[in-house]
């Protein structure tokens, strides 16, 4: 019993894409630890086509149109070759090579693409594109890692040579994946039988590939192609949620990297809401970008509860958020320096830095609250003191920047910080310079959105 062939035959009988895709998944399973080996032993290089043909038409008595049958046989012959390459890793031989695996898998991918364009593969088989695309990317990155390990073992190690062609196979994979993307996007068949249903899956694979080789800019070509076809595509909500969430996450991050935090937040929030509740790692990744977006857009912090669910997010954001909340400028600067490497690596440094304004706003808000209330007149509700000496803000800055009493804080500098916050809409009021006072807006609007 050869489980790969059984899955293939059963997939053909039921016209089930997932079953055929399972056959094309190049791994051993716990149920069948010799899955690949037993398929490989099924035949040999000279006879694999004949053996497959005999198996499908005689043993399983499948009736498949001739051209299509030939395409399946070509596909699984190509697959058989890759399996041979993969098995070399188990033989502890030195002939095993991820570059070989990749090259053979790329051939398999091309056979599959041709099966769609020339030999009438129908849309029920679309899961085959998914699994072939997925492993194409995986094998490419293993091949590139292998190549770079070998070249760094070699005696020449000049920067120019090690960097050159570092991602050669991954780039090649991206080109093949792009053809698969087009194959899905441009299918003219009616929607119910269309490969268009595969378009977001392929887009997501390409996003991952482009991010991996630091070519995020190329992602925008995909977005342009998608929006040009928007009218012909099914609604996004009608796709499986795994496709939607992944797509929305990447689109959000792409806007994020463009510093378009408004658009970014919309897409990321959408991804967050639809994400599977048990997908911890993916939820953390979404929040890694959603939290800075929200800070920039609404000047609001994540709740303690949200961070407490995830140690990774705690480490990333906790101390920064505490400092922002307390208006602790010194602490904020320290936390930014401490986290700098990680923030830069995750490309969230820039928006987080904007948190300093929020920290300053919160510090000045504390000064306002410490100022207390005017004496209320005949039963009127008490009104906060809205005229505050600039010197009080200066004193607050001294406390929070850990200046000692002899360090002078320039009043001009404080006025500059105040007018900056007013300009950014974080405070409402004006500076009465001749009196050394700041006059804040009355009626709970001095610090918009914070309740006072």
């Amino acid at each position, binding site marked *: 019993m050869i489980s790969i062939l059984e899955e293939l035959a059963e997939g053909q009988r039921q016209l089930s894409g997932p079953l055929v895709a399972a056959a094309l*998944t190049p791994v051993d399973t716990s149920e069948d630890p010799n899955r690949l080996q037993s398929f490989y032993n099924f035949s040999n290089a000279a006879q694999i086509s004949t053996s497959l043909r005999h198996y499908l038409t005689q043993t399983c008595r499948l009736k498949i149109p001739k051209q299509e049958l030939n395409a399946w046989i070509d596909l699984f012959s190509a697959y058989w070759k890759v399996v041979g390459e993969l098995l070399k890793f188990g033989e502890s031989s030195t002939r095993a090579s991820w570059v070989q695996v990749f090259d053979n898998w790329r051939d398999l991918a091309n056979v599959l693409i041709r099966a769609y364009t020339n030999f009438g593969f129908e849309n029920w088989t679309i899961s085959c594109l998914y699994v072939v695309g*997925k492993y194409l990317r995986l094998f490419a990155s293993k091949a590139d890692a292998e190549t770079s390990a070998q070249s760094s*073992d070699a005696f020449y190690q000049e920067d120019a040579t090690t960097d050159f062609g570092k991602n050669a196979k991954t780039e090649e994979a991206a080109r093949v994946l792009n053809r698969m993307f087009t194959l899905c996007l441009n299918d003219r068949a009616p929607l119910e039988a269309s490969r268009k249903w595969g378009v977001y899956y392929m887009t997501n694979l390409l996003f991952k590939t482009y991010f991996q080789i630091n070519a995020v800019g190329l992602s925008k070509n995909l977005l342009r192609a998608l929006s040009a076809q928007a009218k012909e595509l099914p609604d996004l909500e009608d796709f499986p*949620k795994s496709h939607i969430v992944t797509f929305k996450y990447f689109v959000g991050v792409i806007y994020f990297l463009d510093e378009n935090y408004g658009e970014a937040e919309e897409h990321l929030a959408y991804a967050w809401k639809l994400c599977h509740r048990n997908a911890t790692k*993916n939820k953390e990744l979404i929040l890694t970008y959603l939290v800075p977006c929200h800070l920039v857009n609404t000047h*609001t912090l994540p*709740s303690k509860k949200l961070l407490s669910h995830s140690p990774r997010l705690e480490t990333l954001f906790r101390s920064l958020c505490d400092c922002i*909340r307390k208006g602790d400028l010194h602490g904020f600067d320290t936390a930014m320096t401490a986290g700098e490497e990680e923030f830069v690596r995750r490309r969230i440094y820039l928006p987080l830095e904007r948190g300093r304004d929020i920290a300053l706003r919160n510090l000045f*808000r504390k000064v306002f609250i410490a100022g207390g209330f005017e004496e209320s007149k005949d039963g009127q509700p008490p009104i906060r003191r809205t005229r505050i000496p600039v010197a009080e803000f200066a004193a607050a800055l001294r*406390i929070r920047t850990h200046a000692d009493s002899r360090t002078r804080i320039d009043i001009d500098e404080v006025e500059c910080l105040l007018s900056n916050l007013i300009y950014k809409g974080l405070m409402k009021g004006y500076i009465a310079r001749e009196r050394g006072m700041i006059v804040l807006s009355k009626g709970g609007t001095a610090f918009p959105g914070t309740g006072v």
Partner: protein
Amino acid sequence: MSNTQSEDKKAEASQQPQQQKPTVLEEDDEFEDFPVDDWPENETEQASGSTNGNNVHLWEESWDDDDAAEDFSKQLKEELKKVEASH
């Protein structure tokens, strides 16, 4: 899932002799494949988040911290006195 895991193990085992240098940096940050293709509405984060389906618990609603406000008020008064004294 067990498929990919066994695949990864196999890959690692075969690579270890020739390669110690970790390439995990990017993998660690990569958006993972979901173990299932689709899931019902009630398994989404939105549904599990709260009863009315809104992200009320996500963000801090209030900036007020009354205990700390008093502390700060005292600290501020002391600081102002210090400044006056030094003039």
